[in-house]
């Protein structure tokens, strides 16, 4: 029984890069900044590949919505072991203009064509920090969802996913019927590094490009960014010599204990 997995990946500012707000407050400075695969998307790709290795899936298709550069992230996913890619091309700003509601609609059109058994996404992207696309897509497809997954098991007959997920007070286990949406949390797995031979192989894997505007979906943002500011800076602190000084400061200066 074939099971196709679709994984959505996003091109974002590298998690270690220093984020600067543009002087005109229009947004975060993106020029000449290192871009990478969103860490949670990378975990999602890894999970999909493990499903294939465990014979729970037969094909992993990676999708990314973004500018020409997004093909780098698709190739990285292919190098990790995904089979083919779909690049939905748009020059809309990914951290502001192109919003989760529109992304979910774009992904739905891919799902409608590809008919996968499961879509695995990262739980959030580290630019917008919205954590919305997964549940939105699930709603549009009327599929069950398992968000913040830290462990995924696929049933023998591939009809169910047993997912342990992180909650505010610990973890819980739920069972969702296939087809379903799963969003990956930090501890779902540790993504593999792409080996050089696999990077070379990835260059030959098929990546289809679709123009986002051609899909007849309203991508217009509902939320307008009026301005973006740096957060207020904290007042500088001091170093203390010893615990006695620390206790004195906390009791008498900060008056917090």
């Amino acid at each position, binding site marked *: 029984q074939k099971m196709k997995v679709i994984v959505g990946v996003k091109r974002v500012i590298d998690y270690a890069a220093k984020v600067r707000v543009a002087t005109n407050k229009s947004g975060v400075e993106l020029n000449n900044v290192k871009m990478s695969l969103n860490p949670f998307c990378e975990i999602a790709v890894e999970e999909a590949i493990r499903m294939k290795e465990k014979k729970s899936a037969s094909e992993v298709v990676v999708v990314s919505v973004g500018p020409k550069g997004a093909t780098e992230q698709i190739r990285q996913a292919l190098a990790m072991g995904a089979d083919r890619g779909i690049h939905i091309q748009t020059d809309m700003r990914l951290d502001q203009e192109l919003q989760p509601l529109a992304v979910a609609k774009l992904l739905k059109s891919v799902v409608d064509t590809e008919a996968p058994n499961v879509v695995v996404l990262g739980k959030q992207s580290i630019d917008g920090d919205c954590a919305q696309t997964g549940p939105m897509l699930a709603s549009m497809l009327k599929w069950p969802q398992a968000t913040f997954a830290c462990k995924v098991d696929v049933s023998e007959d591939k009809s169910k996913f047993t997912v342990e997920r992180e909650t505010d007070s610990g973890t819980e286990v739920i069972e969702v019927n296939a087809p379903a949406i799963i969003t990956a949390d930090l501890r779902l797995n540790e993504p593999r590094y792409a080996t050089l031979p696999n990077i070379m192989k990835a260059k030959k894997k098929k990546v289809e490009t679709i123009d986002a505007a051609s899909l007849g979906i309203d991508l217009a943002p509902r939320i307008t960014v009026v301005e973006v500011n740096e*957060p207020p800076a904290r007042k500088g602190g001091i170093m203390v010599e010893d615990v006695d000084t620390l206790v004195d400061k906390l009791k008498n200066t900060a008056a917090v204990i």
Partner: protein
Amino acid sequence: ETTKKMFATRFARAALVIAEHNNVNLSASTLSAVSAASKLGDVTVLISGNNCGGVAEEASKVSSVSKVLLSQDSSLEKGLAENMTNAALNSINSGDYTHVIAPSSNFGKNYIPRLAAELDVAPITDVTEIVNESTFVRPMYAGNALATVTSSDKLKLMTVRTTAFEKSATSGGSASVEDLAVSDANASLSTFVSEALSSSDRPDLTSARVVVSGGRGMKSGENFKMLEDLADKLGGAVGASRAAVDAGYVPNELQIGQTGKVVAPELYIAVGISGAIQHLSGMKDSKTIVAINKDPDAPIFQVSDYGLAADLFDAVPELSSKV
């Protein structure tokens, strides 16, 4: 009918708060959501769960709450997203709301976007400031950028960062409690199997006055005992960095950071935590920050008010004995 209600002209603004609770008690986070909602309009609170009449009673006494809706069904007991969405839709359709608010937590983030897509609106996640009925501030990039945004949707759906809104008082309100039947709560798409919760007598991490937090420098889960002792001395909660959770020292619900919990206590003591941007994102709004770390160049010292470059295995017990 729904569309007509959503687009009807109205002069009064009405905010629906979807409460967070465990069927026994209302969560502290809901109190912050109520105070946020009170800035937007008349506040109705939806209690959706099972055998949770007591929670509805509790909610009816919260200051600023005008009305409480109680939707009970066994399928709502464990907060499954598909069923929560159905219950929320049911209450939205029963009223004339302009805003729908939930606390920003794993619980809220699970179903709010699903609900938003049902309504074809764009939710605003993690609101830290309400400028006016359609303008909000929210953090991006792990809090390194604050975006002021306006929503063009007629129904505004949002989650609020609870540390940014003071909790409404738990008494002073005298709202009516109305049973709101949900005929189709159970979407039958998912099933709850089990849960693993840690129980603690310590205050809730996101609303504690003091938080003592440990990082990779703690070296083991057993060593967290000294942080627990310090927290107990100070009447605080215990938190952790991602590194400590990944290493298995403590369970995931203690994680503070960009993808964990956000806290803003009066006093945050970071022990053996280097201070990665992603961690800072979860605690840099704390009033007073103390950092204890062997490495004087640790980035945490750039945000701490008081930094002690010392061996935590000496400093923490000494601190416990002297506070």
